[in-house]
């Protein structure tokens, strides 16, 4: 057995190294880069929510940035008007957004396929209109200022590195929850709906309920992301939670590949960092960014991770089966 155990390397050593690297990040990055990463990780939660509803359940939603906003404003209100501790606000707003999304899903998922997508475009516009004009709850166009930082049991987390660890661990938890969901009966029923709704029904899957649950779970992720954003930014305004933001999530997940949480992470990081990399271009930055998206899509229409997985299946899995046959 001179052969290296690929499975072991891929399953444990590489992720372990990656984890160690991530934990060390605050040690060698600047405040700016860390801020970018923090926002990217919060965005990752929203992209994961799109992974649940689009990648697993096959329903494309443009309302995710709206749900993100719902979570953010909920958290701000819980903390500032009701005096809830941030941790409780995080959980409550995640739960609240989940319920909100679930109820809406129950209404919207009577629509099939792209009609739901259309409805989600409408929902996004309606939510943005509310964020801008509902003075009592969202502070209107001026937004909400002076939102306290995140804290756990009295320990206030104000610095970027502190926030990084909090957000990182929540993302990690979400990542593993996705893995659990993927292997659960619920996850399988999502995927059955994605692949063929009628066949799924014939296996006892209630599509309306299941899709609503998927939307609810995506709402929970967006809600958590919203709360984290509120605590990190300290300021909320309508100009953050826009349709453009939702389309960016779609770009991210399409680029990374809709089929895995890791792909979503890669897509999120590429787009988030691409936006910052093109900064030195100043006036040309968005132009090159747009062209970059086009080129990336043309080169890798199935998403970058889609390609990666194909390579994994082709070479690494092959060597594994070869080995079992040799045994």
């Amino acid at each position: 057995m001179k052969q290296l155990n690929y499975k072991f390397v891929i399953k444990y050593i590489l992720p372990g190294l990656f984890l160690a690297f991530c934990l060390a990040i605050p040690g060698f990055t600047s405040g700016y880069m860390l801020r970018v990463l923090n926002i990217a990780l919060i965005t990752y939660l929203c992209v994961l929510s799109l992974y649940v509803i689009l990648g697993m359940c096959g329903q494309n939603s443009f309302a995710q940035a709206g749900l993100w906003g719902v979570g953010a404003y909920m958290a701000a209100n819980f903390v500032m008007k009701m005096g809830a501790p941030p941790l409780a606000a995080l959980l409550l707003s995640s739960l609240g957004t989940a319920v909100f999304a679930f109820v809406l899903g129950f209404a919207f998922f009577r629509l099939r396929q792209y009609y739901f997508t259309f409805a989600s475009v409408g929902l996004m516009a309606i939510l943005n209109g509310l964020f801008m004009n509902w003075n009592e709850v969202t502070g209107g166009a001026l937004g909400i200022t002076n939102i306290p930082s995140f804290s756990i049991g009295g320990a206030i987390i104000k610095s970027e590195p502190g926030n990084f660890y909090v957000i990182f661990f929540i993302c990690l938890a979400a990542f593993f929850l996705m893995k659990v969901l993927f292997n659960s009966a619920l996850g399988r029923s999502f995927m059955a709906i994605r692949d063929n709704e009628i066949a799924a029904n014939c296996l006892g899957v209630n599509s309306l309920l299941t899709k609503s649950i998927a939307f609810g779970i995506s709402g929970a992720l967006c809600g958590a992301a919203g709360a984290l954003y509120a605590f990190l930014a300290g300021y909320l305004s309508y100009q953050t939670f826009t349709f453009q933001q939702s389309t960016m999530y779609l770009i991210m997940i399409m680029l990374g590949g809709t089929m895995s949480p890791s792909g979503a992470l890669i897509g999120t990081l590429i787009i988030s960092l691409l936006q910052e990399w093109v900064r030195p271009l100043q006036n040309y930055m968005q132009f090159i960014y747009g062209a970059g998206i086009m080129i990336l899509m043309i080169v890798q229409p199935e998403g970058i991770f889609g390609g990666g997985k194909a390579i994994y299946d082709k070479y690494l899995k092959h060597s594994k089966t070869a080995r079992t046959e040799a045994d």
Partner: protein
Amino acid sequence: MTSISNTQKQPVLKLINVCKRFGGVVAANEISFELYAGEIFGLIGPNGSGKTTLINLITGIYSVDSGSIVLDGKNIVRMPIHNRARVGIVRTFQHPRLLGRCDIRANISLGKDLADKRKIPDTDKYQERMGVLLEAAGLTNVDLSDSIEKLSYGQQKMLEIVRALLSKPKVLLLDEPAAGLNRKEMSYIINLIDFAVKEDICVLLIEHAMDLVMSICQRLTVLNFGQQIASGIPSEIQENPAVIKAYLGGSRNAEN
């Protein structure tokens, strides 16, 4: 119409005067038959005679225009699709509909999921049952963590039946299970159907392969243009002039 069923047994599934029309086309006209536990019931007819439509009506994909479908004495015509699956009506498709981007284990687990939803208590025996089924289907050598795309068409069809059987259904509807399969694979299908019969599941079989239908079905019914033109045991059907005219025609020898 002669019936060979045991009169002391209650039918599991009963169709009473089921009608369905699409625009001007009558897809099912006054169809009635009953299925008993552990029985293999054949449904044959030329292309476009309404066989698959009938399965779609039983599973609820289409709603019936009139008539009733009774499972264990309960009319289920108003039940949505997923609830019909949960009370024990499970089907396969002409072309297997599996989770294309998942591994084999996930696909099989969908059957277990349905069993859980049906509250079948023997989950501890699940592994054992799966092993038996996979062996019967000739799928013992496959790696369960492989992608579903690694399986041949025939194996995928087998897998779909295994998945259906894992949920311990009351009624199993097989839509052309043997189409496109070779002899060896056909024998696995027979294995699986035998397994179903042993578990007292009633099997409704749509099939074009005449020798298979004639050899394993206890009773048959023949459809033509949505009409039930004959019912009975295989030997009777084979001699029925209406059937020969409508379906087998002069090409019966070619069929074999």
